[in-house]
């Protein structure tokens, strides 16, 4: 039942987009996309955990001021990244810091796990900040203006449109399950219940994509992104250089200090 409730809540939060109108909401989407690209490049090339932490701290501050809903997306990070990060603590060769039976957690493994989690949090936060403060069609129009490949924009467009539909089907199915669950479910029992549900969703989405393609074809769609983006929205508003400059300055500082910050971590002496 807890799983059902948690999933239903996360589906509800999926639809909470653009409800506030902070200053960040008013900054044009081209500027925000450029800032996201800067952050993602920094996330890849920064080596120091301290630099990555500072970058995350900056994004956290931005989220606290402008859009607190972003933090809801952090719930998924330990769930998905944890699965990959935890084994890394044990399988990365290096200096042992703790023993768990016959396997040892290593200092290098721990650093690798922290690296991975920090990078995931940075990526999730900056993308969530963008999507929660910008209308989706503006993001697509900006990607178009920034010469992002056509097929990529089309996939994003259709994913966005139908992720809500799939979420609704999931919500309805989970509610129907919830109405038939009495008492506390056992883990094995719940796996048995949810496995067919996932299969069912896969089949439904497969059938749906065929039907949608036919419906689009019926109204003259021939796989061109310009057919998707309303001409009213495709217009260049001009980049907000003040906003972008903050990110360029941040990138400059972090890249400059990254080599020095890497030595700030204590080496494990055992």
């Amino acid at each position: 039942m807890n799983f059902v409730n948690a999933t239903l809540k996360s589906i509800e939060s999926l639809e909470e987009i653009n409800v506030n109108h902070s200053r960040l909401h008013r900054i044009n989407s081209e500027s925000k996309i450029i800032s996201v690209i800067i952050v993602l490049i920094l996330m890849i090339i920064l080596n120091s955990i301290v630099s990555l932490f500072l970058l995350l701290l900056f994004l956290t501050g931005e989220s606290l001021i402008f859009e607190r809903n972003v933090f809801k997306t952090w719930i998924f990070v330990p769930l998905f990244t944890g699965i990959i990060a935890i084994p890394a603590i044990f399988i990365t060769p290096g200096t042992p810091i703790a023993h768990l039976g016959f396997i040892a957690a290593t200092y290098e493994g721990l650093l690798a796990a922290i690296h991975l989690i920090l990078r995931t949090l940075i990526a999730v936060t900056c993308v969530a900040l963008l999507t929660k403060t910008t209308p989706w069609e503006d993001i697509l129009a900006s990607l178009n203006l920034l010469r992002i490949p056509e097929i990529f924009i089309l996939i994003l467009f259709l994913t966005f449109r139908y992720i809500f539909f799939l979420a609704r089907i999931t919500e309805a199915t989970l509610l129907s399950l919830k109405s038939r669950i009495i008492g506390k479910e056992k883990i094995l029992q719940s796996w048995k219940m949810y496995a067919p549900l996932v299969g069912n969703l896969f089949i439904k989405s497969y059938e749906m994509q065929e039907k949608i393609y036919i419906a689009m074809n019926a109204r003259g769609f021939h796989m061109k992104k310009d057919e998707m983006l309303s001409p009213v929205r495709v217009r260049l508003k001009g980049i907000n250089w003040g906003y972008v400059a903050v990110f360029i300055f941040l990138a400059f500082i972090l890249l400059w200090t990254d080599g020095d910050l890497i030595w700030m971590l204590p080496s494990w002496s055992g």
Partner: protein
Amino acid sequence: MDVAQLERVSYSYRNSPAIADVSLHIKESEVIYLIGENGAGKSTLLLILAALFVPTSGIARIFGKVITEKSTKDIGLRRRIGIVFQDPDVQLFSPTVYDDVSFAPRHLTTGDYKLYTEKAMETMKISHLRQRHPYELSEGEKKRVAIATVLSYDPEFILFDEPTANMDGRGRREFKSLLKKLIDEGKTIVIATHLLRDIVYATRIIGMYKGKIDYDGDPYVLKNKKYLEKLNIL
């Protein structure tokens, strides 16, 4: 002139036959109702008439053009045919209602797409929904928007798949008056339904049973209780 000619048409979904050996002629300004239980092949027949499905066997001609993979993408043909799908979630794929209604006029018409869009939105009384996301709407509203997306490019041949499903009483009444308007404009209309109470202005009834045309004639068949029971729609 025949709007559609189907000669011994069959269609199968991955080895599972949906319609078999269907022959049919549709003339201009006819108002045809396809009746039959769920799974009788009504929707598949509509998709062939809409020039979206190529028959597995047999020949389908729509506005004189033989339907092939190539002709399913023929813009000239597309602008003459409109289809309203049973599930509006399939039909509405744009970020806002306005984008969805203006989608076809932008690609299929030569005039000012804004005029076509506004007219269709006014007809379906959805102007106030223009900036809403289609997924946020109620089922009845979605259905009205789905109909507007087709009316917006003014096709001659309009197909409706269960148009009044999920509509309340007022919605159904409004659909009837829309139908009257389209008939007055001389449109050729085919409506697939299993709801007998919503059948109005029919000039011809086609009864579908297990993928085949079981009846093709005048609407008096609707008074034949035994036949309707056979079709499993009573």
